[in-house]
C-alpha cells in the first residue's frame, strides 16, 4: 500500500507525515477494508481447519470407541492428561471437542468468513465506495474477533480444558461442570459478539450511506443485499445472547442461580444455591440469537452463489426483485421462529402452534430464493469452472438440507427426531455442502481479483469432486441413523443402545452402527480432499495462471471494474452507476456483458 496521493486530502484523516507506512501499519494495524478482509479470511480458515480436526477425533471415537486415536493419541494424552488416557477420547474429552467444534465452526469460522472476510472485502467495492464507513472501527472489530478467538483457543490449555456443554451451553450442565472452560467460553463470546455488532453497524452504514451516484437500492448486487440483511440479523439478534452470557457469567463466577432451579441435585446432594432460576430462560435467550444466526450463515453464501451463477450463465438472475423481497422477509420472520428448537421443553400447544406456523412460513422465502437461483440456470450458457461447480452443487445440497428441516419444524415429528442424528444431518447439509460450498465458490471466484492469478482449475475440480462425494458420504447416513433413534452427542457412538447389547429392545441395528465406520471413512476422505485446496490457495499466489485483464470472468459488478489488486481506495475516480448488476447478454450490445458503470447509449432495463 502506498501513500502517494496525499496532496488531495486535507480532512485530517491521514497523518501529517508523508513517509511510507511500515509493515505493521500496512498489514497488521491496517484500516483498509481489503487488508482487514484478508486478515479475517486467514484467521477464519485456520479456525475452520481446527474445527475440522476436532470433528475428526470425535468421529474416530464414535466409530472405534475406546481405541486410541491414531497419530495424535500420544499428543492428546500429554496435553489433556487423564481425560485422554492412552490417547483415547474419553466422554469428557468428547464433550469438550463437541462443544468447541460447534462453537468454532459457527462463531470463529463461518460467520467471520462470510461477513468479516467476504463482506468486508467486497461490500464497499460493490457499492462503489472507497472504504467502509468506519475504517478504524473495522480494525477494532477484527481485533476483538481475534482476541475472542484466542480466548476460546486458550481454553483448551487451562486445567480442566475447554467448555464441554455443547455449543448451546445449556444450564444446569454448563454451570455445574466444575472447570473454568465455560467461563472462558462466555468471555470469548462477549468479545466475538461485540466484534460482530460493530461490524454489522459498519456494513449497514456503508450500504446505506456510501453507495456511489447512480447505485440505487435495486441496482445493488444480490450479494450486497444478502450482507445487508445478515448484518441486521446480527445487529438485533446477538445482544440478547450477550445479555444471557452476562447472566451465565454471573452464575458461574458469582455463584448466583439465575439459571439454576430450586432443589437441583448434583452428585446426589442438593446444590447450595439460592435457586428459583430457570434453565428454560437460557434456552429462550440463546435460541433468540441462534435461529437468526443460521440465516446469517446461509444468506451471504446464497449471495455468493447468486453472483457466480449470474456470471457463469451469462444471463441476468431470474427474479431479482423476488430474491430481494424474499431475503427481507426471511430476515424478519427469522426473529419469531426460535422456539422450534425447544418443542421438547414442555411448552403448551398454543405456543407450539404459533412457532410451527412461523417456521412453516419461513420456508417460503427460503424456497423462493432457491427457486430463483435454479431458474436462473434456464437458457444460460453455462461455464463449468470451479466456482460454478461449487455453486451448482450448492443448489441440490441446500435443497436437501432445507427439505429435511421440515419434519423438524413440526412438533409432532420433531418429538421423534429431536436431538437425534437426523438433526445433525439436516443442519450439516445446509452449512457444510451448503454454506461452505458457497464459501469455496467465492474463494475460487474472487481469488483472481485479490492476487491477480487464477487458482489451478484442475486441482479445484479435484477439491470439488472430493468434497461433494465425501460430504454426502459423511452426512447422508446420519438421516438413517437419526430416524432409527440414534441420539446425538453420544461419545460411544451408540453402542449402549445397540441391539448388540444383551437385553436391549428396539435398539439400533448393526447396519446403523456400521454406518459409523462409513462416516469415518467419509470424514477421512473429506479431510484429504481439502489438501489440494490448501496447497492450491498458497501455491497459486506466485505460480497461478496470470489473469489476462482486470476482469478475467467478464463480470458486470463494480469489484471487477477496479485494478488488480484494487487500488488502496478502490477506485481512482468515484464510479457512476448507470445500470443494474446483471446486464449479461443484453440484446444489441457488442459484448455479452455490460458493466454497471457503462453509460446508457442504448436504453437498458434497471
Amino acid at each position: 500500500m502506498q501513500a502517494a496521493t496525499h496532496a488531495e486530502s486535507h480532512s485530517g484523516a491521514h497523518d501529517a507525515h508523508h513517509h511510507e507506512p511500515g509493515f505493521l501499519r500496512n498489514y497488521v494495524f491496517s484500516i483498509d477494508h481489503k487488508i482487514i478482509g484478508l486478515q479475517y479470511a486467514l484467521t477464519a480458515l485456520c479456525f475452520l481447519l481446527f474445527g475440522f480436526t476436532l470433528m475428526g477425533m470425535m468421529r474416530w471415537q464414535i466409530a472405534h470407541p475406546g481405541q486410541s486415536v491414531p497419530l495424535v493419541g500420544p499428543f492428546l494424552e500429554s496435553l489433556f492428561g487423564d481425560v485422554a488416557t492412552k490417547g483415547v477420547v474419553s466422554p469428557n474429552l468428547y464433550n469438550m471437542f463437541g462443544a468447541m467444534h460447534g462453537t468454532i465452526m459457527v462463531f470463529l469460522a463461518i460467520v467471520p468468513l462470510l461477513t468479516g472476510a467476504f463482506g468486508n472485502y467486497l461490500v464497499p467495492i460493490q457499492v462503489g465506495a472507497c472504504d467502509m464507513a468506519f475504517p478504524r472501527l473495522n480494525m477494532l472489530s477484527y481485533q476483538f474477533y481475534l482476541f475472542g478467538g484466542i480466548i476460546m483457543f486458550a481454553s483448551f490449555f487451562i486445567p480442566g480444558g475447554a467448555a464441554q456443554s455443547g455449543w448451546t451451553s445449556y444450564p444446569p450442565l454448563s454451570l455445574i461442570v466444575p472447570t473454568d472452560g465455560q467461563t472462558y467460553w462466555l468471555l470469548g463470546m462477549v468479545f466475538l459478539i461485540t466484534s460482530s455488532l460493530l461490524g454489522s453497524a459498519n456494513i449497514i452504514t456503508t450500504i446505506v450511506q456510501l453507495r456511489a451516484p447512480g447505485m440505487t437500492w435495486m441496482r445493488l448486487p444480490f450479494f450486497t443485499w444478502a450482507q445487508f440483511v445478515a448484518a441486521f440479523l446480527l445487529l438485533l439478534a446477538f445482544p440478547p445472547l450477550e445479555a444471557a452470557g452476562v447472566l451465565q457469567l454471573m452464575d458461574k463466577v458469582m455463584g448466583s442461580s439465575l439459571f439454576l432451579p430450586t432443589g437441583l441435585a448434583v452428585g446426589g446432594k442438593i446444590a447450595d444455591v439460592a435457586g428459583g432460576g430457570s434453565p428454560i430462560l437460557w434456552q429462550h435467550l440463546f435460541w433468540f440469537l441462534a435461529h437468526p444466526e443460521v440465516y446469517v450463515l446461509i444468506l451471504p453464501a446464497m449471495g455468493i452463489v447468486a453472483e457466480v451463477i449470474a456470471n457463469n450463465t451469462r444471463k441476468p438472475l431470474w427474479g431479482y426483485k423476488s430474491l430481494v423481497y424474499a431475503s427481507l422477509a426471511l430476515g424478519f420472520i427469522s426473529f419469531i421462529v426460535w422456539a422450534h428448537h425447544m418443542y421438547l421443553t414442555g411448552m403448551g400447544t398454543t405456543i407450539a402452534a404459533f412457532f410451527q406456523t412461523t417456521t412453516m412460513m419461513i420456508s417460503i422465502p427460503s424456497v423462493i430464493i432457491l427457486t430463483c437461483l435454479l431458474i436462473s440456470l434456464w437458457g444460460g450458457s453455462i461455464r463449468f469452472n470451479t466456482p460454478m461447480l461449487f455453486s451448482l452443487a450448492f443448489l441440490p445440497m441446500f435443497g436437501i438440507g432445507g427439505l429435511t428441516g421440515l419434519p423438524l419444524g413440526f412438533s409432532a415429528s420433531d418429538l421423534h427426531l429431536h436431538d437425534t442424528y437426523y438433526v445433525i444431518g439436516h443442519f450439516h447439509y445446509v452449512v457444510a455442502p451448503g454454506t461452505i460450498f458457497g464459501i469455496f465458490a467465492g474463494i475460487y471466484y474472487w481469488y483472481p481479483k485479490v492476487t491477480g492469478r487464477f487458482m489451478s482449475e484442475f486441482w479445484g475440480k479435484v477439491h470439488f469432486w472430493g468434497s461433494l462425494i465425501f460430504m454426502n458420504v459423511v452426512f447422508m447416513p446420519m438421516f438413517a441413523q437419526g430416524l432409527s433413534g440414534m441420539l446425538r452427542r453420544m461419545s460411544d457412538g451408540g453402542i449402549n443402545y445397540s441391539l448388540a447389547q444383551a437385553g436391549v429392545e428396539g435398539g439400533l441395528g448393526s447396519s446403523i452402527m456400521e454406518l459409523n465406520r462409513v462416516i469415518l471413512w467419509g470424514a477421512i476422505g473429506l479431510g484429504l480432499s481439502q489438501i489440494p485446496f490448501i496447497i492450491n490457495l498458497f501455491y497459486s499466489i506466485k505460480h497461478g495462471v496470470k489473469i489476462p485483464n482486470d476482469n478475467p470472468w467478464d463480470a458486470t459488478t463494480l469489484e471487477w471494474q477496479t485494478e488488480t489488486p484494487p487500488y488502496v481506495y478502490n477506485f481512482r475516480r468515484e464510479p457512476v452507476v448507470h445500470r443494474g448488476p446483471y446486464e449479461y447478454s443484453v440484446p444489441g450490445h457488442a459484448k455479452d456483458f455490460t458493466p454497471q458503470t457503462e453509460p446508457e447509449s442504448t436504453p437498458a432495463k434497471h
Partner: protein
Amino acid sequence: MSESHPESFHNYTRRCLLVFVAILCGIGLMVGCSFANVASPLRIAMVLAIACFNAGLVSCYLMHLMSERKFVFTVLIFTVIFFTGLMGLTMLAHSDVPHLKVN
C-alpha cells in the same frame, strides 16, 4: 434542534429546563405512585406508564427523535417489534404449559 431557526443559547436552555422539569415531575409522580395503596398489577402498570412517558420525553426532545429521519424510525420500529416479540413470546411460552392431569 433545527438549524433553520437560530435562537439564542438562553432560549434554548430555557426550553431544555422545561423538559427537565417535566421529567422531574414524572419522577416524583412515579415514586409517589409506587407507594399507592392499590393492587400490585395496577400499581406496576401506573409506574411503568409514567416511566414510558419520561422515556418519551428523553427520546423525543433530548434525542430529537421528533425531527429524525425515516431510516432511523424504520430501524427503531423493527427493533421495538423484535423486542416485543422476545418479551411477549417468551412470557407466552412460560405461561402456556399443558395442564392435563396424569392418572
